[in-house]
């Protein structure tokens, strides 16, 4: 009885193994026939379906050039999350308008949002949508891994390319090749709860402020017994390293340097020590950070929206959205400050960040082109202006605020920018950034290589600074730099 059962089991196992093994390869062959039906996951396969006959025909008679509008193409798009109802409405509106112009295009909505911990798996499984969102931090990483399509050709023929904000767009230009399209940007700022300052009779500092001003303000507002902090520097996850890097830049430091094709860790400089000393002061001298300081982005921004910290460091848009639309604060009760200068007269350096859209390199050329057309469909159009106005009006009806991006994809002084600003000016539920504050912003791009690993290294040190009073800062930074050098930087050869 055992023998036949074993034989049958073996046969079953072999069949399953064979089917499992052939499954991955089979995608190419089977989907070439029906690639259009499931473009969400089979970016590259539709291409085979559409183009292969054309290639075969080319040998006999050259086919007439096909207009991309006539081709049946399916693209899966980056779609807002279920709780982002306003954004979903705007996106649905855009889809409808896009399909009017491109009736042969099928659009699949993907509400997968970029996550550094998930992108590897998504790309390995070929499950990333035709285009997906990402952040300025990720450019080097995505390009290095080959997870962002080279769209230089599409970019070169894009008629509005010269009107795009070059500072922001350049984050996704590597070695002269374009790998993404900017949506909006920001220079990391400090958002202040003025209401909380007023309740403690603390005068808000000027926009041209320094570390000492930040320290004094945080100290004056903090009320640990009531669980109110003066400032909530992030202390958990890679956000901790990201938050601190603003201070490294303000002190004149850099994360890494590139010389002669070699990348060298540079954050263990005197500027790095100075920036950590400032964190020590916030924690131990002013006792101004939350007692429970292990806060990630969501925790710190949430604490700000709940009035449990007077200051938070992040891209202003996200913080303001939570504070005004969920925390119940009014626009005049909050203020967006540039990051403080290390000393009077110094630069208000903040990390340059932003939202970008990246096209999946596994998608076919047609899909890539259609995705590019979709991404830029509303750029510089009157349709977008009226869509924004509708969004503002809808929010007003719901008692919500519209938070415009701190920096847009177009040049600030462009005609289009002025038109959009005129719409913003018409409504009192649009948050207005103070031009005086904006003038001082000094956006600094992040490190090009292994940014997340660097942030993780720094997070451990920052946690130690917050947990222990006496930490040998220089020794810690040197150890972290050595680690980064041997584990990551030494393997990089810059072309």
């Amino acid at each position: 009885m055992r023998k036949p059962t074993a034989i049958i089991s073996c046969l079953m196992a072999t069949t399953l193994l064979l089917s499992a093994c052939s499954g991955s390869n089979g995608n190419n062959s089977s989907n070439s026939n029906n690639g259009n039906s499931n473009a969400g996951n089979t970016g590259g396969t539709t291409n085979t379906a559409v183009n292969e006959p054309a290639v075969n025909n080319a040998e006999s008679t050259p086919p007439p050039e096909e207009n991309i509008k006539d081709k049946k193409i399916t693209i899966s798009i980056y779609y807002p999350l279920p709780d982002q109802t306003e954004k979903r409405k705007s996106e649905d509106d855009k889809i409808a308008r896009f399909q009017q112009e491109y009736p042969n295009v099928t659009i699949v909505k993907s509400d997968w949002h970029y996550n550094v911990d998930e992108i590897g798996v998504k790309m390995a499984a070929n499950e990333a949508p035709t285009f997906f969102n990402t952040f300025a931090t990720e450019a080097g990483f995505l390009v290095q891994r080959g997870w962002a399509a080279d769209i230089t050709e599409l970019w070169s023929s894009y008629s509005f390319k010269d009107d795009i904000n070059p500072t922001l767009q350049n984050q996704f230009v590597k070695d002269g090749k374009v790998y993404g399209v900017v949506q909006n940007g920001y220079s990391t700022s400090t958002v202040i709860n003025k209401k909380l300052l007023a309740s403690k009779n603390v005068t808000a500092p000027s926009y041209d402020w320094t570390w000492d001003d930040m320290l004094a303000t945080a100290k004056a507002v903090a009320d640990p017994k009531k669980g109110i902090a003066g400032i909530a520097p992030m202390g958990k996850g890679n956000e901790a390293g990201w938050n601190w890097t603003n201070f490294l830049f303000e002190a004149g430091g850099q994360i890494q340097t590139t010389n002669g094709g070699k990348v060298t860790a540079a954050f263990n400089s005197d500027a790095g020590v100075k920036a950590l000393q400032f964190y020590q002061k916030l924690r131990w001298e002013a006792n101004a950070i939350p007692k429970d300081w292990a806060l990630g982005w969501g925790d710190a921004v949430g604490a700000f929206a709940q009035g449990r910290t007077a200051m938070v460091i992040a891209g202003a848009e996200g913080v303001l959205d939570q504070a005004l639309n969920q925390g119940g604060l009014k626009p005049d009760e909050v203020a967006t400050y540039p990051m403080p200068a290390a000393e009077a007269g110094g630069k208000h350096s903040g990390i340059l960040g932003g939202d970008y859209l990246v096209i999946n390199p596994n998608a076919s050329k047609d899909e890539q082109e259609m995705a590019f057309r979709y991404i830029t469909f509303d750029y510089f159009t009157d349709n977008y202006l009226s869509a924004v106005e509708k969004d503002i009006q809808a929010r007003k009806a719901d008692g919500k605020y519209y938070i415009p991006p701190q920096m847009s994809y177009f040049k600030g002084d462009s005609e289009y920018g002025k038109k959009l600003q005129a719409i913003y000016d018409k409504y009192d539920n649009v948050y207005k950034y103070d031009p005086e504050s904006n003038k001082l912003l000094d956006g600094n791009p992040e490190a090009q290589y292994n940014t997340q690993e660097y942030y993780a290294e720094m997070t451990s040190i920052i946690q130690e600074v917050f947990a222990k009073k006496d930490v040998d800062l220089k020794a810690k930074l040197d150890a972290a730099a050595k680690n980064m050098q041997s584990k990551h930087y030494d393997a990089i050869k810059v072309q």
Partner: protein
Amino acid sequence: MNPLTKSTTSVPIGPQAAARRSRPQVLLRKYGWSLAFLLPAAAIFLLFLWLPIMKGFVYSFYSIDFVNGNKFTGLDNYRTVLADPDVRIAIKNTLYYMFLCLIIGFWVPIVFAIAISEIKRFQGVFRVAAYLPNVIPVVVLYGLWRWLYDPVGPINASITSLWGGEGISFLSDTSWSMISLVFMETWQQFGSAMLLYLAAVLSIPRDWYEAAEIDGAGIWQRIRHITLPSLRSLILLMLVLQIIGTSQAYQSQLALLDGGPMNATLTYALLIVKYATTRLDMGTASAMGVLMFLVLGVLAMLHFRLDRKGGDAA
């Protein structure tokens, strides 16, 4: 029996071969449907459990690159694991966590099961109440306990009002962070284990207790001499299961503290997750997984033996 006579009735390939062929056919006829019903479960098991395990073994010898292809690296991944100081921290933390779960959490369901079994009225209500934390979604659980552990939350408020001082940084203080997670998890998870213990307690013949009572045994003596000895095999089994379960813990460590502060809650399983997803080094993560598999394999065999022993006893 004359084999030749049989061969004439069968296909001309010899009597023994015929007998060999007919036997599987008979068995297939007899068990065919049973095997067909087993097929989906077997397929799922193979595809989603054994195949990944086997692939994990293979990957542990490769540098995994989804774009440029995998590269055989021999034992390099294992060398990386052994040289990484974080691995030593993670092992230490995991052992510490397992120890805390034993001393803080292991006895709780036993005590509750015995206590609830002693309740004469509304036993069902208490049973449900004890199990309720199990059904709380983890997002709510973490939010709730973040508030309970808050510097101005109810626990700290009680501590400061009773003893003064500044209270405890339950999550940010490295000496408290793991303990805090264990308390939270014990509160959430003791209910399911409690139900198993309760079932076992209720299956102990009542006349044993009545006889003990007649002999003058008090409640503690009844528990010590009847209840606990009756639960012995179950307690042992649950102990092994808990050791296996807690050795793989990473969920609350990741969600609440991301392994911090200062790696104080970085468990071995969390480090595997970080290697695989954050550092995108699937090869080293697989090597760590293989090492863990070997250790847990021993425990699983122990569990299997205890399970069989318990089954035989039953």
